[in-house]
């Protein structure tokens, strides 16, 4: 089988795995070496489904000893199989990279023989890239659950980002659909990567030239819509992962029906709107100071399809509104629909020198369309006759077409539209939020 044919098969198997951005490291080229990374990532093309292609995303092999029901590579699935050789993969990648087809490598793999054997192959490919071709650009590698800690450490020294997929939001789903995996098997390497990152950070403080360990951090991925797990369970888990393992990102991937287990949904469309809402909620957890149990609860466990989670929260907490633009604390501004991280900061800065009026807010990039219901300037609503009323506000917000990305026209870049501002950290300047390639 020639390399191109392998590439076709192994990219095919890798594509359902949504995670990854080419970002998070900032490294200039190095004399004699090839490659640099830029913190904003860099889109090299967009695929026909609108995700950006900046990484060569392939599996090392799609042979697998496991039989996870939701996965195309599961042992019992009748598909074409292929496997790269480490050098073959490294050469192919370098040829793509030097032509500027891709920005970096995203390598994952099925499990051949056993986890350690598999990790050793990945390690060999990465070693060729880093030590022989002096490739200095971005590499994201999946840690294979169950491999030995030494191998994971070695891999971490070569990669920019590592991820271990949590795959399913609950232990019970995992038991049902991925009997060879357990939450524990997944979280063990996560903990190890976290500790490795912390240790290196301390060493770098002491010795400036300590080798960096997974400098772009670790991420994970969850499949959404394959199991009955609720949105509440999902974001509560994400919250815990951010806290416990210091993850950089949790990626959500709408389940595309590839399995035939009786417990899996069949003939369904990927729940793209739900995936989108989860990304929005995730944003609120990371940058807006929300807790998962403020957004949802056991009883109310589903994200609203008509309103983004921030508007939904506000509509249900009308007792906190209106907020007075000229005096409200920053934290509360941040929670107001139509005000993003940047506009909240701009407001706080601008109101020091002059009292703000509605005319000024547009310049500060406040989205009045959404904010009007929740704010006053100088004690007055923009429309003096306005009365706080839950149903009215809900209806008006839900009625504006941009709130319905999934129904009218699904756009995957709408995070900014919904929260009015770019994500605050340039390192996470996300080019394609959901299902980033």
């Amino acid at each position, binding site marked *: 089988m020639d390399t191109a044919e392998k590439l076709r098969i192994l990219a095919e198997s*890798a594509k359902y795995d949504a995670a990854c951005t080419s970002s998070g490291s900032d490294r200039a080229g190095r004399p004699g070496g090839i490659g640099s990374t830029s913190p904003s990532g860099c889109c090299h093309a967009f*695929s026909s489904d609108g995700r950006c292609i900046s990484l060569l995303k392939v599996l090392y092999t799609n042979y697998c000893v496991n039989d996870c029901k939701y996965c195309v590579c599961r042992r019992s699935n009748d598909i074409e199989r292929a496997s790269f050789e480490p050098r073959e993969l490294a050469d192919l990648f370098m040829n793509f990279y030097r*032509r500027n087809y891709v920005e970096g490598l995203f390598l994952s793999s099925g499990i051949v023989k056993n986890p350690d054997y598999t990790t050793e192959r990945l390690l060999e490919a990465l070693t060729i890239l880093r030590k022989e071709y002096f490739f200095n650009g971005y590499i994201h590698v999946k840690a294979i659950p169950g491999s030995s800690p030494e191998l994971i450490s070695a891999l971490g020294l070569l990669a920019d980002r590592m991820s271990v997929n949590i795959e399913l939001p609950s232990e019970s789903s995992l038991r049902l659909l991925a009997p060879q995996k357990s939450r524990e098997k997944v979280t063990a390497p996560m903990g190890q990567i976290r500790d490795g990152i912390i240790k290196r950070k301390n060493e770098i403080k002491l010795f400036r030239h300590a080798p960096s360990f997974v400098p772009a951090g670790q991420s994970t991925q969850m499949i959404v819509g394959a199991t009955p797990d609720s949105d509440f369970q999902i974001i509560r888990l994400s919250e815990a992962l951010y806290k416990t393992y210091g993850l950089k990102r949790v990626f959500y991937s709408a389940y595309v029906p590839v399995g035939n287990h009786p417990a899996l949904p069949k003939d369904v469309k990927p729940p793209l709107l739900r995936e989108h809402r989860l990304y929005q909620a995730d944003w609120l957890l990371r940058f807006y100071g929300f807790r998962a149990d403020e957004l949802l609860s056991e009883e109310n466990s589903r994200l609203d399809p008509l309103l983004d989670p921030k508007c939904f929260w506000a509509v249900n907490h009308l007792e906190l509104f209106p907020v007075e633009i000229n005096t409200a604390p920053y934290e509360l501004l941040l929670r107001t629909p139509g005000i993003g991280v940047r506009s909240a900061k701009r407001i706080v800065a601008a109101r020091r020198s002059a009292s703000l009026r509605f005319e000024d807010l547009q310049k500060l990039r406040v989205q009045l369309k959404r904010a009007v219901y929740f704010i006053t300037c100088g004690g007055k609503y923009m429309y003096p006759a306005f009365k706080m009323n839950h149903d009215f506000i809900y209806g008006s917000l839900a009625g504006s077409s941009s709130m319905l990305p999934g129904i009218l026209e699904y756009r995957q870049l709408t995070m900014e539209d919904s929260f009015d501002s770019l994500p605050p950290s340039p390192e996470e300047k996300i080019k394609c939020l959901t299902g980033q390639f």
Partner: protein
Amino acid sequence: MPYGTVLDDFDLIYVYDGSYQGFFSAIFDAVYDRREPAGIVTGDRLQLSLGARYKEVATSAEKARRVSSAARQKLGGEAMRRVYLAFLSSDDGRETAIYRYLMLGFRLGRAASSRLTDADVFRVSTLAQNVSRETDKMQGFMRFSVMEGGAQYCRFSPKNNILPLVLGHFASRLGPIPFVIHDTGRGLLGVYDTHDKYIVSAEGFIPPEKSADEKSFERAWKLFYDTIGIAERKNPRLMKQLMPARYFRHYWDIAP
């Protein structure tokens, strides 16, 4: 004008050679002449109206250095970066806007840059943004072919004159690999020989033959590209919106 303006009865247009140094030399001359220039343009854009005269500026590294280091001191490095980016834009009024922006900066110092209500400050900052946005996008969408002999070649035709910027980007990225980037619209070549970078005219340049295995990599990439779109998620409108045609009309791989 901070230096007092000479009042006479004709408009004077400064004509420079198109280089950044030439442009700064023109600013030097205008300041030295104590004259608000009626325009600062390159020769090919010179249009004399009734009563206007023009003066050809001799490019001088020394004059350029004096103006730019004074400006850097007054306005700061970030502003100078913005000025450089705006200079690379294809907008016809760029030179005049930059000139006025700098003059404002000489008066107000760093505060000038935050005066976005001033038309010139706003224009310079918008132009700079456009240039840097186009550069970011282009850097992603450009494609090289490997030629016989191992050097790489890439053609593009950007709206703004971003060749110097992309040249720097790829030189730092490709390290030991020499390459040529061809701006077909402007007829310029950006050359990187693994030590130095320079920009030369493309007149008479014929790109060398593609190397023998180039086709197979092009095919492999196309295969990869076609494979990874998820049929269930197809969204051609979104794709179009993300990839305006002008960025990739030179490349074979990504036409929708």
